[in-house]
Structures are given as C-alpha cells and as structure tokens.
C-alpha cells in the first residue's frame, strides 16, 4: 500500500510537468488547428534561461523569492520567444495548408535544437548541472516521502491552469480566442484582431513551456539541448489523450500519462514504458479520436 501511494505521488509529480507542456500544445491547436512541434524546444530553452538566470544572480542560498523571480523571468523570455517564432515562421504561412505549417514547425524545432547544440552560438551539446532553485526539504508522511521540489510541480501547474482557465473564459481576450477557434473569418468580421490574438496565444503557451522547463530541470537537474524531445512527445500524447484543444483535458491527460509511466516503470515491464505510452496514443486515436474530454465535431462537407 505504501508503495502504491508513493508511486501515486511520483506519478502525479511527473504527470504535472507533462500537463504543463500539454497545455501549450492544446492552446495553439485550439486556435490554429496545428501542432506546434517547436513547443518542446521552447521548453528546453526555458530550462536554459533558468540556468543562465541562476548563474547571473548567483544566489547565496536558494530562496523562495529568488525562485519565483527566476520562474517569472523565464516565462517572460519564453513568451517573447514564442511570439518571435510565430511571427517569423508561422505568420507568413497563415493562409497555406495545415500540412505546410506542420512541416515548418518540425523545421523550426530542428533549427532550435541544432543552434542550441552549437558551441559558438548556442549552449553547446554537453549536459549542464542545474543548480537548486527553491529551498528544498524532505517531507515525511509516515512511510511516504516527498520533496518540496516534487510537490511544487503540481501546485504550480494547478495555479497556472486556474489562471489560464480564467483568461480564456472570463476576459475579453479569452473570449476573442474562443471566437477565433470557432471561426477565424467570422471573428475578424466582428472586429477581432486575429494576428494579435494568435500572438497572444503563442505567448501564453510558450510561457507555460518555459515554466515547465524550469520545473523539470529542478527535479531532473541535468539539462541538455535535446532534453525537450521526449517530454514533448509525451505531452503531445497527453494532449491528444485528454482531447486536443481542451484545457482541462490536457491537464488530465498529462497526469494520466505520468501515472501510467510511473506504474509501468515500477514493474518488470519498465523498459516498455515508452511503448505503452505511445500504444495509448494509438488506442485513443482508434477508439476515441476526440480524446477523453473532447467533443467530436461533425465536419460539414
């Protein structure tokens, strides 16, 4: 029983990171109907921005305030990066087919990865050790152990999800985002500045990836330019599992994938962990293409 509960905690903390990345995928998909594959690289850049910030500030001791500062700064930088990617790579292709944009997204992803691996212009290909961000403590609940670092992930994820939900459902910009996702032409007819809203969506999604990057690096303190690929793919599976385009769905999908992975890893099947995660993707696409919380839309021909 103790083992089960401990694995549950491990799974939720891993899943919360997937959820955070999945939220970014799902938001961009909801508005633009394409998968932004460069999202996992923004996640990677996020952890490097955190690393540079920590080097620059040289905190004597990791403090709560310092951690929050780094996290906020990181989200701001990633938001800018997201907007930049959107303006340079995707905006010129606004009226092209989705496939064109999708291939471009893969291209942007490879470009960022390879620039980051470059020793001169990027971070270099060697892993870097990520310094402690928040003061960390071990919490004991009977036989269960949890570090505050692990606990921070679901808390930050829930907080950001709440803020996101509020933005999308209770603000004018959010209403515009939803309008855009229903019908872009009609939205522009009623006076919505589509370009501005799309940029805003990218900024929002990328800042979440940045936060994810820092939280991931905090828990797995070795960062490298290709670190985003696997978590990015898992988060994509999570977004599809929950119903792509659906915010609570992405969070739910992330946590589910995290739990499945953790429970599989704790058994003899541990080396099939990734296979099982992707088998879930295939099963979902076959039997419930709209995902767990998504609504199937009938396309009129």
């Amino acid at each position, binding site marked *: 029983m*103790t*083992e089960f509960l*401990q*694995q549950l905690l*491990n*799974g939720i903390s*891993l899943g919360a990171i997937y959820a955070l990345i999945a939220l970014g995928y799902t938001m961009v998909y909801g508005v633009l109907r394409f998968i932004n594959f460069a999202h996992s690289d923004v996640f990677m850049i996020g952890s490097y921005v955190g690393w540079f910030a920590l080097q620059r500030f040289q905190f004597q001791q990791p403090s709560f305030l310092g951690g929050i500062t780094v996290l906020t700064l990181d989200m701001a930088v990633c938001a800018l990066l997201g907007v930049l990617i959107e303006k340079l790579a995707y905006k010129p292709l606004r009226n092209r087919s989705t496939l064109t944009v999708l291939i471009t997204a893969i291209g942007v992803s490879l470009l960022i990865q390879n620039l980051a691996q470059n*020793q001169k212009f990027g971070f*270099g*290909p*060697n*892993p870097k*050790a990520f310094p*402690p961000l928040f003061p960390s403590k*071990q919490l*004991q609940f009977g036989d269960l*152990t949890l*570090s505050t*670092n*692990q606990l921070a992930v679901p808390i930050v994820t829930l907080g950001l999800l709440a803020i996101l939900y509020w933005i999308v459902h209770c603000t004018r910009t959010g209403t515009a985002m939803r309008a855009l996702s229903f019908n872009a032409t009609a939205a522009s007819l009623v006076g919505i500045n589509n370009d501005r809203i799309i940029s805003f969506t990218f900024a929002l999604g990328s800042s979440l990836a940045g936060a994810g990057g820092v939280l991931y690096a905090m828990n*797995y*303190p*070795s960062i*490298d330019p290709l*670190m985003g690929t*696997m978590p990015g793919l898992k988060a994509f599976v999570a977004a599809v599992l929950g119903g792509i385009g659906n915010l609570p769905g992405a969070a739910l999908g992330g946590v589910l994938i995290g739990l499945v*992975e*953790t*429970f*599989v*890893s*704790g*058994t003899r099947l*541990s*080396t099939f*962990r*990734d296979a099982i995660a992707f088998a879930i993707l295939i099963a979902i696409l076959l039997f419930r293409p709209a995902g767990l919380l998504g609504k199937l839309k009938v396309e009129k021909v």
Partner: protein
Amino acid sequence: MPLHPKEPLLTDSTSSSLLFFALITGVFVLMGCRPEVPNSSTKMEPILIGFFGALTGNAAGLGQYTEMGATLAVEEINASGGVLGHPLELRREDNRSLAGESATIVKKLLSRDQVVAIVGDANSGRCLEAGPLCQAAGIPMISPAATLPQVTEIGDFIFRVCFTDPFQGKLMAEFARKNLSLKRIGFLVDATSPYSLGLADVFRDRFTAEGGLVIGEQRYNGGDKDFRAQLTALKADGVEAIFAPRYYHSGGLILRQARELALTFPMLGGDGWEAPELIDVGGSAADGAYFPVHFFAETPTPATRDFLDRFHRRFGKFPTGVSALAFDTLQMIGDALRRSNSIRPKSIRDELAVTRDFPGITGLITMDSHHNAQKSAVIVGVKAGSFQFVSVIEP
C-alpha cells in the same frame, strides 16, 4: 563471346599496358602499403595517431578527460624529440556520445588520415562498433578504458590497458558483501547498455556466491531521467543498497532521486561514475556512493605526484582515471613504435602484444594473451562532495 580477362592485358596494346600498371599501383595503394620507416625527405612529417571518443554529449565527462590525457602524452613525447625522429600527431574525432556514430568517424580516420594506430573510446559499446573496422583494416586499436570483455575478443588488433568488467563486478560484489556487510541488494540497470547489463551479471554471480541476495532488479532505458518509480519499487522490496552501474550522467540523477525518496543506504556503481559531474548533478546526495576507479593517487608516488602536477599545469584541473589511462595508452604506442622501429601497423601490433612491465602512471602494464592488461583497482567513496580513497584491490 566473353574474352579471357587477362587477354587484353597480355596483348601488345599500349593503353592496355598502362591500364595494367595503373591497376597494380591502385592495388598497392588500396592495400595501404606504407614505407618501413617514414620518408626521410620529409623529415618532420608527423606520425598520425587516431583518437575517437565522446568529446561532447552525455559521456563528455569521460571523453574529454580521456582526450586531455592523450594530448598531454603526445605533447610530452614530442617535447622530448618525438618517436623515430618524427613528432606524433593526434587526429581527434567526436562521436557526440551517440551510438552508431563511431563507425563513420573511425572509417574517416582509417581512410582519410591513414593513421597507424587508434586510441579508442572509453565506452565499451562504441569500441564494439569501431573495433571490427580496425581489425579488418589491420590497424591496432587500444582502448584506454573499455571494460567489456567482448571488446578485445574482436580480434588480435584490439587492446585495452584497463581492468575488465568481470574483475570490477567481482570486486564490487565482494566489497559490498565483506566491507559493507550487505546482504540484500537491488539492481538498477540500463537495459540498452551492454556495460550495465554485463556488470550486473558478474555482480549477481559473485554476490550470491558470497551468500548475499539480489532481491530486486529494475531496468530503465538509456537517456531516462526519471528513476523514482524504479527506486520506489526497490525500496518496497527492502533492499539494503543499490548497484546501478552506468555512467555518471544517470548516476548523479539516480543518487539525487534516491536520497529524495529517503533512501540513505550505500549506492554502488561502476568505473563509469568517475567524473566531477557525478557530484555536480548529485550534490550532497552523492555522499555514500562507492565505485571502482582505474587510478587514484591517495598516497602518490613521486611519479604520480609529478603527473598530477603536469596535468594540472596544462589543463587547470586534476586528471581522472581515464586521463591517466589515456596517457599510458599513448606512451605505450610510442614505446611500441620505438621498439618496432617502423610505422607499419602490423609491427606496432606485434610490439604492443608483447608489452611487458611497461611503467605506466596507472601501474606496470603487461599485455596478457587476450590483449588485456592486468590492473589493480581502487575503490573510492564520495564524502562531503569529494572522492575519497577507500581501498585498493590487486588483480
């Protein structure tokens, strides 16, 4: 009607004769015919030695320290007049710590650079990729630190100057059983690494033979960063220690996550844990880690003290075990070149194979009939963020 293949060549046509000579020359070039001793007209033409390793990527902590050791040796040999009147030159290639890259870069060393010998990666898996190419080309390959037994089984052109996995697995098992008095141990191994799997096998055999029990065995995939699920399962099995042979890269993360799950018992690794990065990533969690290393100057002799100083003066940091091994590897190649008085790879190989009591930094090196050096190992432990001498084990 098909002609006899020799017919046009034997007839009197001039063009055919030319073709014949061209073919003969070509065959000799392809066979890699080299002069017995370097051409005297180009007196200072360097003798090329190939080097391939993980200069970047996840295993760069091993590869870069190997490369520094090799570089220092080459510089010192050249400063004292080189070999056979020629300087040595190291041609470096990087496999970026990736599987599948080594064959390409070693082909480049063999065909483009025409090196006379190759210093192999510290990683056994990479040496398994490159070894068959060197064997087929007839160029000796010496790995400073590939410990997997199969590496030197590739053929008679493949050597190593370090101990092997059966040796280090056995000594870690005995250390765990006798020195640490452990009875119940768990494994955390990388299912994609022959090194990790092989060491676990040797450890299991020895540990159970000594009356211990392996009560949990968990696996992960290379490149994984989350080990909490496996560690939690091992904790539930009630293990008293974990043996996790792989590189420092996963080692640091495993140590850290183990301590976060309140596993305070000893953590055992293989020689791949020896890199400063183990402590960079592991932090205070690295305390209580034990692993074998190839070289550790706890009570330095004047020779090793001097080596440490020279290395530090040149690179601004102290060498790890792989640096000392790579240094010895290059010195041994220089020695074999001198003794064979030729740069023919075949005679270099012959001389390497009969190396006896060569005084290296890591001890006296003697090649056995399987081209392995019999070496002692030092077990180190991490205490307060630094590597500490624990014990030395003779072969």
